[in-house]
């Protein structure tokens, strides 16, 4: 049977990796530092996928960023998704070339849907994960782009429908309000709207303890969970989390 997925997120900002809280980032260390202090090799053996998001202001693919991807990919043999500042087909080709398996698109889907359709028609829908960042505004979940800085004015349900129509392969829904708080995922929102989601769903924002993952992945409608919380899952933390999930009978890959 198809297993659930535990996805680790690395937030990259000008050569450094970061912690994030409500989408406000704090630099933690560069690749070497992360490798040493967070035992990156052990992280990569305890997760199902890696997601690297460039949250830099430049909003384009820099040589440094591409070089870092190349370096990371050579050390881990799991799927790697890359996002942040991807604008067009050429960007997609550049990422595929350095080893990305999938790309994460957000702002691009709103600003240039035709380009996204072109990418999907060439690489297939499974190459694209559509990211939606949302937070409650006046009692309703509203969607934000550009690293949660721009209010699109659109509701979460509308954007989910729009993304599925364009043909992305998977959805990544992130709660801006819970991001970095370690208080747990926004399960009430996900539970309320899951019937409108026909493609694989990854949720993120709020993971702090292994049982947050358990609660989420025990739900049939949630296919994967993602966390960028370096502190909570450093060194043996992810291995422990995986162990808890397996002991709670959440179906996960074994190797």
């Amino acid at each position, binding site marked *: 049977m198809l297993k659930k997925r535990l996805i680790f997120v690395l937030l990259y900002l000008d050569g450094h990796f970061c912690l994030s809280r409500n989408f406000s980032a704090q630099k933690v260390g560069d690749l070497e530092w992360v490798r040493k202090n967070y035992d990156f090799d052990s992280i990569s053996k305890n997760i199902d996928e890696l997601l690297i998001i460039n949250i830099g202001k430049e909003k384009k693919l820099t040589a440094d960023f591409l070089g870092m991807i*190349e370096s990371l*990919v*050579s*050390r881990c*043999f799991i799927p790697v998704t890359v996002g942040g500042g991807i604008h067009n087909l050429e960007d997609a080709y550049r990422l595929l070339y350095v*080893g990305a398996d999938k790309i994460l698109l957000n702002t691009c889907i709103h600003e240039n849907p035709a380009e996204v359709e072109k990418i999907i028609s060439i690489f297939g829908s499974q190459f694209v994960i559509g990211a939606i960042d949302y937070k409650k505004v006046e009692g309703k979940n509203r969607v934000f782009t550009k690293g949660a800085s721009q209010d699109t004015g659109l509701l979460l349900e509308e954007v989910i429908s729009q993304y599925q129509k364009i043909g992305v392969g998977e959805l990544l829904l992130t709660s801006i309000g819970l991001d970095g708080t370690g208080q747990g995922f926004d399960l009430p929102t996900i539970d309320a709207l899951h019937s409108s989601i026909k493609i694989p769903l990854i949720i993120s924002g709020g993971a702090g303890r292994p049982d947050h993952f358990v609660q989420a992945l025990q739900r049939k409608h949630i296919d994967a969970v993602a966390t960028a919380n370096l502190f909570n899952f450093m060194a043996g933390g992810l291995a422990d989390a995986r162990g808890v999930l397996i002991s709670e009978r959440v179906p996960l890959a074994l190797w």
Partner: protein
Amino acid sequence: MGTDFRNSLGDTAAVITIIDYNMGNLASIVGAFKSLGISCRVSSSPKDIVTSDRIILPGVGSFKKAMDVIKERGIDEALNTLTNIHERPLLGICLGMQILASRGEEGGGAQGLGLIEGEVRRFNLEDKSLKIPHVGFNEVVASKKCKMFESLSDSPDFYFVHSYFMACANREDVSGVTTYGSTFDTAVEKGNIWGCQFHPEKSQKNGLMILENFSRF
């Protein structure tokens, strides 16, 4: 003996070529072989293909587009020569396995390489709560004794990401099956022609073992 014979046909220490036809993630495959200490090269030239010891055919994207590019560059003829005449090993990965088939129904239909009889179809699952694409780790159950799954556990997990699958015409060609809704073919092994629907370069230790088994037999 040894290094002098590195580039001659038939030398078991010789070259694994990963075909670059602009439709695949080559970096990960190269990285995987590198970590196993197995040398490989990347090439798009039919000449390099024909003089290789073994070939990896990767692939991400559309069946039709892949076949168009392959035919245009003469890679189909080179592959035929290599596998049928020289009988060298070939491993197709993901779309690379699918194009080994006789034909694929995507986009109105296209002819495949025809190295393994079968057809590539889109998933049409009865259980509508199962989502397409089929993405994530799933078990592959070996359907016959084969070299591909040597040293692996009974039903190892591998990483899948696809919306189409290959339905093989001859059960003896199938080396592995997977269940997602229904059970379908996910690995083939017909003599020197191997294929896996999953990505061995993305499947942690299990996947690396497949690549090692391929490089050795």
